[in-house]
């Protein structure tokens, strides 16, 4: 936040265009709220958010989760190919680009990944499902959500000292 004294900007110039851009921003965000809602419904209806289903998966007792993740990856991969081959642009007209991830030593991926996986098995939910379970009425899921925030905060603080 840069310090701008309120009197240095004419009030009309500040509020009027701001309202119209704000309205556009809110409308834009509503698109994502809607998409998120649909996503939350699918996650919950397919029980991907269920500790039981995650346990079934890690115990190799049911195909359900493997089928869900497998077909999700397949669908996403085919769509990405299609988007690239046809040069499809996003609605705002910008060419669609997917930034590549850098491997580095790979430590962050296997170590961070394993730590997350352990948490996933204990709570039975990854970040999206945490929210869906809370929404569906399991109030105690507020606890893993808050501790996940604490975990991310801890990473942010320790980051300069961790191998990546």
């Amino acid at each position, binding site marked *: 936040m840069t310090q701008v004294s309120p009197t240095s900007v004419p009030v009309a110039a500040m509020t009027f265009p701001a309202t119209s851009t704000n309205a556009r921003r809110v409308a834009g965000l509503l698109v994502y709220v809607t998409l998120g809602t649909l996503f939350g419904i699918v996650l919950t*209806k397919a029980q991907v958010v269920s500790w039981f289903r995650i346990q079934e998966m890690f115990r190799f007792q049911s195909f359900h989760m493997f089928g869900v993740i497998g077909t999700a990856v397949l669908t996403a991969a085919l769509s990405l190919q299609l988007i690239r081959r046809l040069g499809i642009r996003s609605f705002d007209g910008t060419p669609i680009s997917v930034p590549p991830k850098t491997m580095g030593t790979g430590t962050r991926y296997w170590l961070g990944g394993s730590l997350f996986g352990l948490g996933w098995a204990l709570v039975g939910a990854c970040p999206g499902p945490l929210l869906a379970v809370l929404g569906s009425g399991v109030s105690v899921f507020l606890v893993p959500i808050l501790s996940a925030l604490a975990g991310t905060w801890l990473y942010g603080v320790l980051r300069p000292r961790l191998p990546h």
Partner: protein
Amino acid sequence: MQVDNVMTVWPWYIAGPLIGSFVPLLLLAGNRMFGISSNLRHTCAAALPTRAEFFRYDWRRAGGWNLAFAVGILLGGVLVGLTASPPSTMQLAPAARESMASVGVTDFSGLVPRELFNWTALTTLPGIVMLVGGGLLIGFGTAYAGGCTSGHAISGLADLQLPSLVATLGFFAGGLLGTWVVLPMLLGG
């Protein structure tokens, strides 16, 4: 138990393609890459006082859309919760029921085991380890790995990114350790 109200589950061949289609949908909507765990970082950047470099960026610009998407996920859960019929049972593989019974889980009504996930569980060691410890690991691990199931296992794998494959193998290694070693130790199985 004989008048079990069985919870209908959307089959994998419907749910999987629907979930995967959020990758192109978000790219089309605004060139956004499907991924959920960044919201933990955005929330920290927005709400927690910190001097850490990791949280010093314009979270509104980078993560506004994603936070809106997360609010939607919560709403989706609310909608399903409101329209759900009274306590219904999860349809689980018989082998799964047995192994869950071996760690003391016998109530299969609801999406998550009531015996393990309730407020009084927080007064027990297993409850604290699962809810608080598990949450910490999720937040720390996803931030460290730079993504979770959505960002790495779905978006990253679909884009054939090697780092995402390493991360996904890590997710599974950690999950197997949690399921086969840590949970039985905690719950006595």
